[in-house]
């Protein structure tokens, strides 16, 4: 009984560690892609990107001009 509990705790701890690393990787990937997209839509200044996103930038109150 006691050894079973220990084993299940070890397994649980192992999966918790793995999931913490997974969480960090997933969150980092989301932040990276999210920031990249946000920069493109809201901040990048090449004329074509600016013109395409123009009305959306104004509507979302990004500084545009």
């Amino acid at each position, binding site marked *: 009984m006691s050894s079973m509990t220990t084993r299940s705790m070890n397994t*649980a*701890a192992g999966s918790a560690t793995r999931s913490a690393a997974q969480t960090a*990787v997933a969150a980092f990937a989301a932040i990276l892609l999210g920031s990249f997209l*946000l920069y493109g839509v809201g901040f990048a200044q090449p004329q074509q990107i600016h013109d395409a996103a123009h009305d959306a930038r104004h*509507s*979302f109150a990004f500084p545009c001009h």
Partner: protein
Amino acid sequence: MDLIRRLFTAALVAGVLSGTAASVVQQATTVPLILEAEKYEVVTPPPAASAAPAGAPAPSHQHGPVREVGEGVPTSLDEAMQRIGLTIVANLLTGVAYALLLGAAILLAGRPVDARRGLVWGMGGFVAVSLAPAFGLAPELPGMAGAELELRQLWWLSAAAGAGVGLTALAFARNRLVIAVAVLAAALPHLIGAPHPESAEGAVPPELAARFVTASLGGAALFWAILGATCGWLMSGLVRETESRPALRVQPGAR
């Protein structure tokens, strides 16, 4: 990885839903104001040009002054449709981008979420990236006077990031020093002050500008409500799984 796939799927769905809703609302609220404001974004014609056609009055739908380059108002149906289409694409991308950032924050906070809690997260996002920057830099119409663009972008980012850090600390931090520093980070851009032009001499009528501010903020609130609620709803199983409290987790087969 399963976690990444599910997080990105949630962000994609939340972004598309909120971006679609924003597109509909914008076409009825902010976009007509933008088009109206662009009529004032003009270059004064040389006096000789305006004096010449005195004998033959121009048709009423043609504007005398010349538009600034790069700000053409759609003249054909095709151009108008293209402009609406590009705005929708930009809105969807904005939705996905914000949903990815909000989803990452929800994941890192590690607290259980559902649609209702997601709504609260969404309101936090609204306060951070819409309300806090607007406190210093009002949503701008084309043709309004503004300080240098890079300065305004930098201030906007610091106000949004500061507010995000401040809200997150107020919601989750235990240490009072951490909370105090985070609140200071939220207040600092406003204490320094947003960059404004030396003289406010925009061409846009103030009534238009005022209507645009409320329309922009109202649309953003709806956008964030949908974005947050959808993120919370689709991530409800995700955060419970990754919650780092194995001792409290129900063992398989225990039910």
